[in-house]
């Protein structure tokens, strides 16, 4: 394989990535860039990270053979149960890692952005664990539709600040977090939640989340004698659970990598968050990547039923995986995701997050064959989405 899926020293994956940031952020980013690999490779970090992932977050997360879903699709479907992690999603893998980094770098004040609130909760959780101040930026729209997570963050001691610009969702929360960092460059650590933002964040977060694919390899080997599946399927907003699910398989072309992005009400509806299908190259939040934009280069307001996928860009690693054809990105509508969520619930007794439901719905678009091993990452659990499920699935 000729392409590399690791970034170069400036953070570029092919033409994507880099650090397109104002001068005000350069010292913060340089400081992080100079330290993250050294700290992550240190004996003490590795030991603390491993211990917290196991004893605190409950890893390894199970790789579950979904018998009835497998019958439905005529292949072997394995669910990577990130929903069973402490705090209810894969986000905690990254927040544990980054809080250890922040601690090592002597930072006392933690800021984060959140869409569905899963990253906000995971950040508030590790801040409580470490006794650090925590401020979470969240779009006003998301504060309304993800109320249970807002309450959790508050109980954990975090301050939730409402982002009221733009469509008042994840993009706007990220803008506010970056502005906070500009104003507080010395004591503050920006604990970013996805494989987005300026270098080194996309690489840093992918490395933290790579625990997912590392586990899939040995778990699958234990259960099937093969360590590599035929497919790995994950949902993509910014793309952190997908990056973590793909990570150890990127260099093996026999493993088909499938990302499911949110088509919202449909690709041509104008209400969508499908940044691969509809995006063009541009800069968002400090990174060159694929993003939805107007002819005049203004970033388009995204829409998805799932707050965690409601983002107009995508991590630069995914832009590169798509560009090279190494991974394939499929669009899934709100309705398809809702149907897939209900199917999993009724077949397996697992209520997935709306985000993860997009990955499940993508199975309908694949030509799956008997005997093939298909790993689907269930990135989070559906508790936070119950209001949407009750309303949209008319379960009352």
């Amino acid at each position, binding site marked *: 394989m000729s392409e590399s899926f690791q970034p170069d020293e400036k953070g570029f994956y092919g033409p994507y990535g880099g650090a397109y940031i104002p*001068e*005000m952020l350069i*010292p913060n980013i340089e400081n992080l860039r100079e330290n993250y690999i050294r700290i992550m490779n240190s004996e003490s970090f590795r030991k603390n990270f491993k211990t917290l992932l196991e004893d605190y977050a409950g890893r390894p997360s199970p790789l579950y053979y979904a018998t009835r879903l497998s019958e439905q699709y005529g292949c072997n479907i394995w669910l990577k149960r990130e929903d069973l992690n402490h705090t209810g999603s894969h986000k905690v893998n990254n927040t544990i890692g980054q809080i250890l980094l922040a601690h090592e770098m002597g930072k006392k004040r933690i800021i984060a952005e959140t869409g569905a609130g899963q990253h906000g909760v995971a950040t508030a959780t590790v801040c409580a664990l470490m006794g650090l101040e925590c401020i979470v930026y969240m779009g006003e729209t998301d504060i309304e539709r993800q109320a249970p997570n807002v309450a959790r963050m508050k109980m954990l001691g975090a301050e939730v600040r409402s982002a009221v*610009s733009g469509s008042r969702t994840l993009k706007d929360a990220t803008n506010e977090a970056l502005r906070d960092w500009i104003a507080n460059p010395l004591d503050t650590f920006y604990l970013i939640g996805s494989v987005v933002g300026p270098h080194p964040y996309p690489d840093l977060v992918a490395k933290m989340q790579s625990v997912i694919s590392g586990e899939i390899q040995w778990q699958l080997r234990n259960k099937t004698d093969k360590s590599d599946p035929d497919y790995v399927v994950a949902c993509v907003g910014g793309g952190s659970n997908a990056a973590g699910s793909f990570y150890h398989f990127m260099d093996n072309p026999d493993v088909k990598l499938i990302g499911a992005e949110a088509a919202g009400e449909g690709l041509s509806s104008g209400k969508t968050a499908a940044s691969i299908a509809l995006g063009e190259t541009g800069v968002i939040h400090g990174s060159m990547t694929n993003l939805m934009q107007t002819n005049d*280069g*203004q970033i388009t307001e995204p829409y998805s039923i799932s707050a965690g996928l409601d983002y107009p860009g995508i991590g630069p690693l995914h832009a590169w995986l798509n560009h090279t054809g190494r991974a394939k990105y499929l669009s899934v509508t709100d309705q398809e995701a809702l149907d897939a969520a209900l199917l999993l619930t009724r077949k397996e007794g697992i209520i997935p997050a709306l985000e993860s439901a997009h990955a499940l719905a993508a199975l309908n678009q694949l030509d799956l064959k008997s005997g093939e091993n298909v790993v689907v990452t269930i990135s989070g659990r559906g508790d936070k989405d119950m209001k949407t499920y009750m309303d949209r699935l008319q379960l009352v």
Partner: protein
Amino acid sequence: MEKLQTLFKQKKDLLSVYFTAGFPNIDSTLPVLKALEEGGADFVEIGMPYSDPLADGPVIQNSSTVALKNGMSLKVLFEQLKELKKSVKIPMILMGYFNPVLKFGVEAFIEECKEVGISGLIIPDLPYETYIEEYEKLFTENGISNIFLITPQTPDDRIKKLNKASTSFIYMVSSAAVTGARNGGLSPKQVDYFERVNSMELKTPCMVGFGISNHQNYKEVCNYAHGAIVGSAFIKHLENIGDDHNEIVGFIKKLKNGQ
């Protein structure tokens, strides 16, 4: 670029004013520019509105949102600037974010800038390294000055690098913050920072911006720099009073002369 260089050689205590193109109305660009010139602004920064202005506080964010709703775009802006090219004498700088420029095509954008008489550009999220590697030649060949920002956190060796590549002036961000008016005078920390930069004897002058909102702020920073840049305070004025010629002239006179 030359127009700016000449201005900096001839005059001290410069006052530069920022406004967002297309705010408060789509056709405000010309009346605002003429009033700024008459009021005594030494040069102007015309903001190219953007959907996601990372380095800006709420006042400029809001003006950008309104300007975009009004239909402002780079294409419209360049058409307006072509028309008023002959009627405005003071140097003009464009300030905005990288994505719209990238989408427009950086080369085409620079050509348009040259065509309408733009002297320089401030693109906060186009980092120095990318500028040097990809665009320096294009800018300088077309006489467009790229203006770098420095902040209290910028290390001396980086300031030296930016200074070396600077062709008009360096934008000294007054404190760690996004744009927006702030109360009170200079803090001892800010004075230390200004003096530190002064002692480096940079080849190009510095203008102080971010948080400068009245005559007193302006005079105060002129003790440490070649002049000051006012943005949010002027946008606030436009928000309250609109683009009335006499009101703008009065605002700028008061800013510059204290009365």
